[in-house]
């Protein structure tokens, strides 16, 4: 059987989600953002909630995320995505509201907003991309940077005496009574991608029941910030990030 006999419309088993626009992602080759965008798009498509979804884009690499998913978007000030998501979900309680944030946005300048939004139990989904670095501005040290990890502002590695310890914000948030579902996922292998999609699906289904905040951390790579190839960056993440940020459900 020739390849041209297999490539036919009726044999199609996997293709790009219809929620994704035709724009080419501006992300670097191999960036985890693209996979997470795709998973969100697939979940929105499967749940048939395109008309009911309002997304909040952050500041960081994913600042232009509104170009890629064909849903309604609001652009928040740096770190303020949970505050904006709170406003949107309170004004339009029947909508599915999600905020998409990176670690420099959520765990640094936006720490107050995320802690209080989760503590109030706002009816929103938070997607938190943690790559341990400020990717967009050139790989500076973030609160989530690992101990000893070299970045452009800590070229000899993070010194915990000088810069503090890696902030496990997801562990903090899991303790808050306002959150219903808190989980940490990754998208480095096909199995992890499938699990992450299940987690995103569960979060979006939960948000319709209005029992609290849904929080999904995705431990991600920043291969250009880490100065590694995409494949090597995934290996580095498994070896170094996972011991500090272990995968699995923390709550719910």
């Amino acid at each position, binding site marked *: *059987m020739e390849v041209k*006999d297999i490539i036919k419309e009726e*044999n199609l088993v*996997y*293709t790009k989600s219809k929620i994704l626009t035709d724009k080419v*992602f501006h992300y670097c080759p*191999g960036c985890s953002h693209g996979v997470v965008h*795709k998973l969100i798009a697939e979940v929105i498509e499967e749940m048939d909630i395109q008309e009911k979804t309002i997304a909040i884009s952050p500041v960081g690499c994913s600042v232009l995320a509104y170009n890629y998913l064909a849903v309604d978007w609001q652009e928040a000030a740096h770190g303020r995505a949970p505050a904006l998501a709170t406003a949107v979900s309170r004004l339009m309680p029947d909508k599915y509201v999600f905020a998409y944030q990176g670690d420099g946005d959520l765990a640094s300048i936006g720490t107050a907003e995320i802690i209080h939004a989760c503590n109030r139990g706002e009816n929103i989904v938070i997607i938190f991309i943690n790559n341990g670095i400020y990717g967009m501005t050139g790989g500076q040290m973030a609160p989530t940077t690992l101990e000893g990890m070299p970045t452009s502002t800590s070229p000899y590695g993070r010194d915990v005496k000088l810069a503090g310890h890696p902030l496990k914000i997801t562990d903090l948030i899991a303790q808050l009574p306002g959150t219903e579902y808190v989980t940490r996922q990754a998208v480095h*292998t096909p199995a992890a991608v499938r699990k992450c999609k299940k987690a995103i699906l569960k979060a979006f289904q939960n948000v319709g029941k209005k029992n609290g905040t849904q929080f999904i951390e995705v431990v991600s790579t920043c291969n250009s910030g880490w100065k590694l190839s*995409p494949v090597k960056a995934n290996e580095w993440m498994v070896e170094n990030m996972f011991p500090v940020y272990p995968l699995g459900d923390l709550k719910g």
Partner: protein
Amino acid sequence: MAKIRGAIKVDVEKCKGCGLCVVACPTSVIALSRDVNSKGYNYAYMEVPEACTGCANCGLVCPDSVIDVYRVKAGVEA
């Protein structure tokens, strides 16, 4: 014995040649081309098309959603 056969179609112009599909493929079908697209990326292609089972792992891990996966039951083989 019925055999599952698959194939992928890569959107060559949108592929960034990150190589994540190459390591995700369980049957080592995919490789990066020596040719480049208009942006200069070595795009992914099927090097060993007969080994593809259409498992869609490459499509799942592709950050740019450029891979379409097709699968067919190839019927009885001689």
